[in-house]
């Protein structure tokens, strides 16, 4: 099935720390932008500029003045080794460059050489290096073997977050015209058309009408999936994968049923038909703002009172942590609700108020475990207390299923392992990285499968869902075992009993 070695799952829920295999993943890299437009749409040079070294150093200097994180993180590392066994790509590949600190050092060695006294005058002593083509190639390869999941930052005594470093590295590479095809092409579509897939309003409307028919066939109740409906109470912004991909679309069905039973009017927007914001993956503040601004504009045009975000990990990070700063203030919305709200927060509130009627036995064929998505777990929150992002989705699952089991403690909550496909890596040209990166999660899953008979893996992230659908078979799991949390609610909700 694969032209590379797939890790073999053991009985322990935790993967062993691998012995190092230097250069095991050297040269593994995603496609580079070949259509210059995919760069220029985002304000980057179409292809590698001639004086790229000069431009890259200047860009690094610029970023050092703009981001305290970058400046402090590049200075503060003491090479204690705390992070070295924490990255799922290190665990899956054994390539020492996939140790977070070694990944950071690819940038740090250049920072030292050009921006510090020690690196300028004693490069050998502090491991400083000139920016050569070889270094640039290593950057492109290894900064695209980081899913920016922030697991390393949990364990760093100085809070150094490799995601910040890899975002800066990618921003530098974009600034010299060395863009990654997958991320930049998709981001361009999002900014120009309104969603990652380039779906036009008509295609979205067709899909939604089809959904209304399907739900009516299955339940006998006509649930609305409105698009561009002015005056609706809620603008629902969801990853565009929810419009067509499996199992994502079943989650969208679930959102609609929840709104229906709660009797709250809502609408999707063709202009803001994407919650994802791939600009985060490349660190670009301007593009992050551009992509997010469509959502503010849509909310104003539609005259909604609330904005709710669908099941998508990095989108929730951008929405929760960045929106208010990027595209706020949201003083035109109803101040009684947080802006934005996660669909899980919304459903959880309804549940606590007794506004939903769920029949758990509808999911009795399922023994479910929950995969905490990295961006939800370590870069955002739900509810009004720290850790609500772990509590709320689990409560929703338990309210709709009789059988729920958690995976090992070392692999959930803030210690959760990335699915292996986040951060702009969800592309077929990185299949080896994705499969090997999924290893720790697959190992923990195998453990609960054997011990508790778990047969469903619930997630609240479009990337996780797509990634798992693809990599589960490599580890001899059923690809259809991945489900959305609102898919479980969708199955359990008793339409026609409350509304």
């Amino acid at each position: 099935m694969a032209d590379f070695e797939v890790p073999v799952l053991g009985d322990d829920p935790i993967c062993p720390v691998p012995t190092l295999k230097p250069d095991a993943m050297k040269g593994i890299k995603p496609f580079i932008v070949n259509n210059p437009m995919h760069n220029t749409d985002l304000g980057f040079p179409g292809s590698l500029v001639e004086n790229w070294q000069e431009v890259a150093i200047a860009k690094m200097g610029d970023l050092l003045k703009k981001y305290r994180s970058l400046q402090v993180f590049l200075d503060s590392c003491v090479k204690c080794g705390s992070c070295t066994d924490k990255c799922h790509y290190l665990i899956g590949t054994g390539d020492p460059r996939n140790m977070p600190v070694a990944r950071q050092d690819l940038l740090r060695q250049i920072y030292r050489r050009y921006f510090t006294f020690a690196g300028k005058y004693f490069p050998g002593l502090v491991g400083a290096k000139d920016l050569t083509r070889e270094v640039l190639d290593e950057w492109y390869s290894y900064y695209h073997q980081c899913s920016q999941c922030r697991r390393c930052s949990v364990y760093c005594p100085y809070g150094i977050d490799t995601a910040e470093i890899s975002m800066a590295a990618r921003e530098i590479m974009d600034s010299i015209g060395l863009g990654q095809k997958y991320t930049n092409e998709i981001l361009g579509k999002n900014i120009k058309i309104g969603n990652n897939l380039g779906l036009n309003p008509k295609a979205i409307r067709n899909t939604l009408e089809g959904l209304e028919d399907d739900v009516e066939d299955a339940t006998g109740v006509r649930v609305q999936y409105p698009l561009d409906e002015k005056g609706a109470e809620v603008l629902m912004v969801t990853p565009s994968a929810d419009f067509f991909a499996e199992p994502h679309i079943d989650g969208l069905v679930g959102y609609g049923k929840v709104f229906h039973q709660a009797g709250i009017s809502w609408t999707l927007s063709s202009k803001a038909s994407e919650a994802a914001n791939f600009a985060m993956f490349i660190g670009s503040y301007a593009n992050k703002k551009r992509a997010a601004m469509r959502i503010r504009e849509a909310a104003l045009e539609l005259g909604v009172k609330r904005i709710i975000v669908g099941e998508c990990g990095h989108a929730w990070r951008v929405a929760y942590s960045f929106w208010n700063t990027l595209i706020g203030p949201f003083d035109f919305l109803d101040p009684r609700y947080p802006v934005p709200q996660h669909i899980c927060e919304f459903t959880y509130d309804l549940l606590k108020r007794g506004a939903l009627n769920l029949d758990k036995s509808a999911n009795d064929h399922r023994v479910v475990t929950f995969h905490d998505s990295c961006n939800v777990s370590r870069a955002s929150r739900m509810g009004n207390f720290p850790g609500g992002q772990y509590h709320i989705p689990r409560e929703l699952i338990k309210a709709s299923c009789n059988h729920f089991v958690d995976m090992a403690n070392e692999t959930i909550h803030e210690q959760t392992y990335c699915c292996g496909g986040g951060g702009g890596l969800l592309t077929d040209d990185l299949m080896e990285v994705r499969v090997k990166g999924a290893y720790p999660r697959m190992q923990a899953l195998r453990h609960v499968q054997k011990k508790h008979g778990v047969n469903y893996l619930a997630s609240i992230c479009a990337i996780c869902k797509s990634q798992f659908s693809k990599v589960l078979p490599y580890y001899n799991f059923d690809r259809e075992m991945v489900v959305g949390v609102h898919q479980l609610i969708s199955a359990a909700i008793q339409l026609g009993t409350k509304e």
Partner: protein
Amino acid sequence: MTVTMLYAVLFYAAVAILIIGLLRRIVIYTRVPAPLRIATMPAPLNLGGVVLRMAREVFFFESLFKSTKWTWLFGFIFHISMAVVLLRHSRYFVEPLCSGIEFIQFFGKYAAFGMVAGLGGLLVRRLLVDRVNYISAPSDYFMLGLLLAIGLSGLGMTFLVHTDIVALKAFFLGLIYFDWQPLPVDPLLLIHLTLVATLMIVFPFSKLLHVPGVFFSPTRNQIDDAREKRHVAGWAKETAV
């Protein structure tokens, strides 16, 4: 007298470089904005919570403890011992002594063993654990060696070859009050002082910047309040859409 002159100049220079170098870094860290909320979650919801989180990080190395118990143990022993040793050393710069400094003298003498033991553990780990070995640059060994040599030369003076500690104190008080007094010319003392001055001088140019750095780390010092408050940095205001 030449030796006294030499070390007087060395210590004035070392103190100046340490203070100016650190202040310069701190000014840079303060001026560079943090344009987005990036706290590692779950994060505190208010300032009091952040102060507690930072205190746990600075005094107990909380994150390191979550990660690897051996490194935590060696690192913690080293740092806490060094803190006690430094406090003990304040007796050479202060007259008259306060009771706290007198109280700590006994512990300070033996804390030096903890310092050396902790450093030794860190060094062994750096040499033997393949992952840590891979990420080590010469400067990482240099720093451990420097601190070890400082600890060992200090221990040597405490337990083996005593120096004229009264004269030494007079020398340092003389430096402080610009009333220079002769420095005892003992090899072990001169080695110890040279190493300490070296440490002070390299401090602001090395990974020892983790000392101010930890306080400025956005993933640790930010409040989880992004939905309630906007955090627009100066440069970000002009970002066109």
